[in-house]
């Protein structure tokens, strides 16, 4: 049985909940109160993860302690289609890894700014975090734009979303809670909407589902012609 040590307002925990939802896995949740009681730093929890970080996943006796590591594990073990982490394709695996590290870097910028504004982590230098986040978002936006131009709707060169998309999504979409606007990153915003339309997508507090996709008028007309009506 899978068991997730979880906290609703954590973007890193949300990554794992998303993966489980996309793979239709059922699991138990043990809620660890990150805020305000800092239960992830309690002695009991440090026995599970000496780093004092969420999330942690237990698959029977096997413990995995990092959001990105958990994504790799779940995709490898439970994705029968092998789309989320196509381990037989070295170039894709390399690309995915690159963006998993990028996703992890977002915790020091976008996520940190959110902790500062919402949860009073006052020792965080918020202006620096926001500036760094904007640097990352600009690069991410460019990357997504060029991918779109080449016909790839996702972060990596695949027609399917990968765990890199899952890993990047939470702290991109929650950025405004840390005062980081996405208004200047249109390709990022389009990617967010596409991500929200992946079948079995779930929300967390602070994130709302996307409406149905609009078909552009000329495409709609064309499909009418093609369908003969």
């Amino acid at each position, binding site marked *: 049985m899978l068991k997730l040590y979880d906290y*609703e*307002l954590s973007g890193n925990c949300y990554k794992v909940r998303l993966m489980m939802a996309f793979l239709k896995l059922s699991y138990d949740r043990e*809620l660890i*109160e990150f*805020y*305000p*009681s800092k239960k992830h730093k309690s002695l009991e929890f440090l026995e599970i993860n000496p780093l004092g970080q969420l999330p942690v996943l237990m698959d029977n006796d096997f413990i995995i302690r990092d959001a990105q590591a958990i994504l790799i594990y779940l995709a490898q073990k439970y994705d029968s289609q092998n789309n989320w982490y196509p381990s037989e394709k070295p170039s894709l695996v390399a690309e995915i890894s690159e963006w998993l590290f990028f996703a992890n870097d977002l915790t020091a910028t976008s996520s940190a700014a959110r902790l*500062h*504004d*919402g*949860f*009073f982590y006052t020792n965080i230098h918020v202006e620096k975090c926001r500036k760094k986040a904007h640097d990352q978002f600009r690069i991410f936006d460019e990357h997504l734009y060029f991918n779109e131009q080449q016909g790839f709707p996702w972060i990596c060169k695949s027609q399917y979303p990968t765990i890199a998309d899952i890993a990047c999504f939470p702290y991109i979409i929650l950025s*405004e*809670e840390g*005062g980081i606007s996405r208004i200047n990153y249109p390709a990022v915003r389009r990617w967010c909407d596409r991500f929200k339309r992946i079948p079995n997508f779930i929300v*967390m*507090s*602070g*994130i*709302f589902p996307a409406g149905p996709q609009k078909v552009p008028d000329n495409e709609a007309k064309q499909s009418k012609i093609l369908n003969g009506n």
Partner: protein
Amino acid sequence: MHAEICEDTVILNQWHPISSTDDLKNHKQITTMLLEEKITCKKNSNGKYFVWKSIDIKKKLLPIKIAYGYLWTSLGTPPTDLFSFPEFYEIDRRNVATGVFGVNISAGRTIENFLDMGHFPFVHTGVLGEEPHTEVKEYDVSICETNDEILATKCQFYQPQAAVISSKGAEVDYIYRIPHINCAILYKSSPVDKKRQDAIIIFVQPVSQEIVRAHTGMCIIDDKSADKDIRLFQQTIFGQDKPILENQFPKKLPLDSRAETPIRADKSSIAYRRWLSQKGLTYGVIPSEDNNLFEVM
């Protein structure tokens, strides 16, 4: 950002919540922001609190009050008494401070969102509301002259999970009280005892005109749920409200009746804006330009 000095006596003379006493248990000293002033709060070994402006080397003490699980202070001349909240002292109630959250929005917008039932099905989907139960039925709003507070009564809403202990959906009765310009209490049918009501509080601490610390808490009849579960339930709800609040524009609350277009469901917020206008509040709001306020209601 340059700190503006607050000169609005309406807000300076209020009692403001600065911390839950729960949060102070583990700290000897904390600092926080109130109306753009840095405030230090110290607790001595006898559990007595002392509050002063951090910038003040003489440490001239500010007035304090311990009430309803919170430490309150004021930068002006506050009234002798704080509003009443008798339910807090009922012996079988659970008083749980469910957390303080930083929100980049004005205090007025925060209170207004708390009063709004229209957003339940869309923002708290599956918990405090769900489609197709979206109608906000007619309710009453009055201003209680003796206590100078706003009351919204006969509010009703269908909620799939009204409280942490709820096992099924129910038509829930609501009463809202706004006994303070930055504080509101809502009373809702208790899932446990039909004759009584749970109380949920929001006490807003204005950090600046457009940033608040929102203190949330519950005062409920529930001998089963653990404190942690009560807190996590409320955190989930507040986490859903946060982006809605922060995406409002302008961040200050406009008091002019023509600034935004209210619908019938906004009756309580119309009364709230008018009440703030009549008090002459200017901090964190966009004051009305004329005196011909809210003729139509």
